[in-house]
């Protein structure tokens, strides 16, 4: 009988594992990053990540731009929830410049940020479904992400990379269509979210695929710098909206949903529950916005002529407005020297901005604390010893966004 196996050269050690190159472009990674997996059959022995494929040097670029031009860079971090990044940046600038925004602006911002959180979690949760083999939910909820994007469009004119808001407030007041669409969203979305949950939450197949896979303990998660829903799924109730309330979040009543096992299923549940909380926050904020009457109901920005572009009509008719317009556009305004760290609860966790100003027109140094980049290093620990197909679910349930990771 002839032997069929391949003869290895003399002295070579026979390799018993398979190397699998997953990515950089692979439909299941939902972004550009690479994993080099060592597999023993279908079990993962080790995983090495290569990141940086879409690194765009935002921190370097930011050192040459005036504050208002950096907003567009933040869009491209976590592009599933750009408005939160934009607002986080405006809040950082406002902290540095000592600007106090009117309450109505804060509430409008909260509406936009919570809508963004819903659209972020919606995508993440439905993609977990897709990777577990359930496509229906994903297609179904797309309709409501579209509605959220339409609200952005009414407010700022764009959909994905929003560049929404300005330092001190919004570029324009919300129009009636925006509020009508918001009402439609508040009316219709709860039913859809319930239905979406019914598809997954007690679905036997989904539960068996996601429970006790990609598990991490609270202690390890903290050591790895986890924040946001991924940390809360391990049972730690750390939420920046509550711990360091910004943008008047202290005026709202909401809960912080937590899990306890830190597995894929808990991450899914936490995100799902957070959407309910966000809905409640939006409802509260909308009520508060409606309570403003008369001139107060027209306020949509703070009075900061040095940083907030004047009305176009004034630019053509008033000397002072023209001067400010010119100075802002040409980036000729020096900011105060200082050092500020400000963070917001982004879709994926603590999105921090560390801004150092030396009193010039552009930041001396700007560092983005990108939650994705920090927690993705735990991927090997999360997947080691598990099945390859579970690793795919783990990857999407961590909500790894290449844009945010690579900065």
């Amino acid at each position, binding site marked *: 009988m002839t032997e069929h196996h391949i003869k290895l050269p003399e002295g070579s050690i026979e390799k018993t594992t398979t190397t699998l190159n997953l990515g950089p472009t692979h439909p299941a990674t939902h972004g550009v990053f690479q994993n080099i997996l060592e597999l023993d059959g279908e079990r993962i022995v080790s995983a090495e990540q290569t990141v940086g494929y879409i690194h765009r040097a935002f921190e370097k670029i930011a050192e040459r731009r005036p504050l208002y031009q950096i907003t567009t860079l933040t869009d491209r971090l976590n592009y599933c929830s750009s408005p939160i990044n934009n607002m986080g940046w405006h809040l950082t600038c406002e902290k540095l410049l000592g600007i106090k925004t009117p309450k109505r602006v804060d509430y409008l911002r909260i509406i936009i940020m919570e809508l963004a959180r819903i659209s972020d979690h919606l995508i993440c949760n439905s993609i977990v479904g897709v990777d577990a083999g359930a496509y229906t939910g994903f297609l179904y909820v797309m309709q409501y992400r579209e509605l959220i994007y339409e609200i952005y469009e009414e407010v700022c004119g764009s959909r994905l990379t929003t560049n929404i808001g300005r330092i001190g407030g919004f570029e324009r007041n919300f129009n009636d269509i925006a509020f009508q669409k918001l009402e439609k969203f508040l009316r219709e979305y709860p039913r859809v979210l319930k239905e979406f949950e019914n598809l997954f939450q007690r679905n036997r197949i989904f539960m068996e695929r996601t429970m006790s896979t990609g598990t991490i303990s609270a202690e390890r998660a903290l*050591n790895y*710098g986890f924040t946001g829903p991924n940390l809360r799924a391990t049972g730690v109730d750390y939420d920046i909206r509550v711990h360091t309330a910004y943008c008047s979040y202290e005026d709202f009543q909401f809960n912080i949903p937590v899990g306890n096992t830190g597995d894929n299923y808990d991450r899914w549940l936490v995100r799902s529950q957070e959407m309910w909380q966000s809905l409640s926050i939006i409802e509260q904020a909308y009520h508060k916005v409606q309570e403003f009457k008369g001139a107060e109901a027209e306020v949509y920005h703070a009075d900061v002529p040095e940083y907030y572009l004047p009305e176009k009509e004034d630019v053509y008719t008033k000397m002072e407005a023209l001067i400010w317009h010119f100075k802002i556009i040409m980036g000729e305004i020096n900011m105060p020297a200082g050092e500020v760290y400000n963070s917001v609860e982004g879709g994926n966790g603590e999105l921090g901005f560390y801004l150092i100003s030396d009193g010039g027109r552009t930041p001396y140094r700007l560092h983005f604390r990108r939650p994705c980049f920090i927690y993705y290093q735990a991927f090997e620990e999360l997947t080691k010893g598990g099945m390859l197909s579970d690793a795919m679910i783990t990857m999407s349930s961590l909500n790894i966004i290449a844009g945010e990771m690579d*900065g």
Partner: protein
Amino acid sequence: MALTNEHIKQKLIEKFGDQVKNFTEPYDLLTFESPKEINLKVLNFLYDDEELKFRFLTDLCAVHYPDKKGKELAVVYHLHNLVDNVRIRLKVFTGIEKPDVYTATGLFSAANWMERETYDFYGVNFIGHPNLKRILNVEEMDYFPMRKEFPLEDQTRTDKDDEMFGRGGN
């Protein structure tokens, strides 16, 4: 009793004497410096002390100050005490000729990639790091691009002239 900045400062001075210095509070965030030789001792103290409990590494990055001779690079740690919800900022300065700083990976797993990123962009050599290589840039790169000597645009470009706007010009 809530943990106040003043109390943290007193505890640090009690432990390390005049080695920890330049205490400031920009925007209410306690900021201080330590010599690079004892950065791990300071981090360990902040981590282990039953009162301080700074056990969450929020952020780690570097800053380049070309004019500060002998301490051109600053490594900045943002630490968070999640129980009392207090943040502090620790700065460690190092010369650019020999930018060696001890790694914090033994204390925080999160520091692994953050230090690789800092090395990648500023060339800070973290002693004891398990895998100190470039992370976001290509491995063939032989310079550290976030340092201030690398301007963002080619300074010899002539098609973008600031003269029109009353700046630059010859």
